[in-house]
């Protein structure tokens, strides 16, 4: 919707999802009105759907467990975990119960639990409130991972995650909340966004001439803005034309929609804003290497955060998080 911010689009999506099915429930800490959650994503829900919203004690593993029980009994359940760092407290219920239950009883047991959490730094919240924990959940059988972007309508993405029957985690970059929800169309003078494979497929950001791509950047929604700034810089300083692909679904990762562009680009760069090592970037790069062996002109470049905690002070945060300059340098060095 015109003029919407991302958190408003998310909030509208949650309203839709609770509205379409009275059996869809939402649990989380401090989610009741008038507060509506630490980042206000659940605003209005408890007023409009008092029987579907449950504000919980500070018990992350417990509330994901309760959600799993409700899901096992047939509900669709959304859980808000206040900060992605606290997902780790619910690891047992997410990995050992939710994901494993789907198949460990010898037949498929659908489990519609979707855990949402704000992630990432840039807000000065310090090391226990700034992590990007995505990599800790990659490759867990029957656990889907998706990340919010300014281009995907959260309503469609969450509806899909809730309907699949596998549990899922939805990562929401904190910086993105207050940014404009862009959807498809022109972003600025340089960039335009498209969703060629529909509302769940990857967003493709181009400078208008996709056929002349020098550099292809693949990144999740939280990094897209920084990738666009890097792309502008690459054009200005090095005359390299960049295309950016922003998948909504991080895992399982579907490489098919990106193979074409990746095969044609001079440099392919995968960016994630967490530390490398068993992470998303390496997994995506490996898929591309395997699918495009012999066709790529050079190894896929990966850019990750520095292997450190996210410090509290803003000037220190910027030494750890991925910034545009780091992407520019990595791409430029690969071309030489």
């Amino acid at each position, binding site marked *: 919707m015109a003029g919407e911010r991302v958190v408003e689009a998310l909030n509208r999506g949650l309203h839709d999802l609770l509205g379409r099915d009275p059996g869809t429930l939402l649990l989380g800490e401090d989610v009741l009105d008038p507060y509506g959650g630490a980042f206000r994503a659940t605003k209005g829900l408890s007023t409009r759907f008092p029987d579907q919203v449950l504000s919980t004690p*500070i018990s992350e593993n417990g509330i994901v467990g309760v959600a799993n029980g409700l899901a096992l009994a047939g509900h669709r359940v959304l859980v808000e975990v206040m900060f992605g760092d606290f997902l780790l407290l619910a690891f047992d219920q997410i990995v050992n119960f939710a994901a494993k239950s789907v198949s460990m009883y010898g037949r498929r047991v659908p489990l519609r639990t979707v855990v949402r959490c704000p992630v990432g730094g840039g807000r000065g*919240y310090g*090391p226990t*409130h700034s992590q990007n924990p995505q990599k800790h959940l990659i490759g867990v059988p029957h656990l889907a991972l998706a990340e919010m972007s300014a281009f995907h309508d959260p309503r469609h993405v969450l509806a899909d995650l809730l309907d699949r029957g596998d549990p899922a985690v939805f990562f929401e970059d904190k910086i993105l909340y207050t940014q404009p929800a862009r959807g498809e169309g022109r972003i600025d003078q340089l960039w335009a966004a498209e969703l060629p494979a529909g509302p769940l497929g990857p967003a493709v950001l181009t400078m208008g001439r996709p056929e002349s791509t020098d550099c292809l950047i693949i990144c999740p929604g939280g990094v897209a803005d920084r990738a666009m700034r890097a792309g502008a810089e690459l054009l200005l300083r090095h005359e390299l034309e960049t295309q950016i692909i922003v998948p909504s679904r991080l895992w399982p990762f579907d490489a098919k929609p990106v193979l074409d562009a990746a095969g044609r680009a001079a440099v392919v760069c995968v960016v994630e804003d967490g530390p490398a090592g068993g992470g998303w970037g390496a997994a995506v790069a490996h898929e591309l290497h395997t699918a495009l062996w012999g066709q790529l002109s050079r190894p896929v470049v990966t850019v990750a955060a520095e292997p450190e905690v996210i410090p509290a*002070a803003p000037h220190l945060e910027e030494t750890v998080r991925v910034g545009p300059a780091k992407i520019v340098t990595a791409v430029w060095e690969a071309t030489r």
Partner: protein
Amino acid sequence: MTAPTLDDDLDSLLLIRHFEQRLLDLFAAGELNGTTHTCLGQEHVPVALSPLLAEDDFVLSNHRGHGHYLARYDDPAGLLAEIMGRRGGVCDGVGGSQHLFRDGYLSTGVQGESLPVGVGIALSLRRRKPGSVVVAYIGDGTWGEGAVYEALNMAALWRAPMIVVVEHNGIAQTTPTEAHLAGTIGGRCAGFGIRHRLVEGNDVTAIRAALAPAISLVRTSGEPLVVEFRTHRLGPHSKGDDTRSEQELEAARRADWYPRLAAAAPESFAAADGRQRDRVAAVVDDVRARPASEWRRQWPANE
């Protein structure tokens, strides 16, 4: 441990009060980043306890920890520099408001995880520095975390000399205690056979006198103790996010120690108040003028 005088206590209370108020002002003025949780209204808790602690005791603090720190260390500049990311911060600006560490003191922002850690530190103290204790501050809301109960169980089983100080301010972020806690904290302690002391009011001298024997007993017996302070959060959870009614806020203000002490001894109070306000102002000016903190581990900035 030299016994503090009434004036010392008042100075300590007022230092924390003015420090926290200035923090909120600095936030409002856009001079501070990130988030902060002030202990306005709860200053008397660490001020009463700190003189009962010895140098070898270990304090574990939480998100609302500025008072815990300032009551133990006369270091407002180190704390403010940490919060503002300036030179001289306790942890070089890496940890920020809720992640502090120095000898005998650690805070972290993940609710509940400090209690098992506290049991571990307490077991070590028992071996290496018998008679020392761990003091772990948590809020009422933190009793929602399972780790709290695993820790209480182990503390009781293994006689870990740990004192859990509960700042029961009736609310967790926006959730009133009635909505997050079934039964009572005292009842939960009873389930583990752990002694529980309830403290009401904010008379620092009386509280200290009442708690001194119980804390000594932890030192000699190794048996853990839970001290539950009924207190009031005077300010917002962090900044500008108070969802309580005017009535509830009025009740918190009525219970505050500040007007009570001001009325009890107007002249000496006013003098102390001015002294600490000026002190905090000087600290703010000092820290504000400092260069950005340096992290010993550095990479080129990448913006």
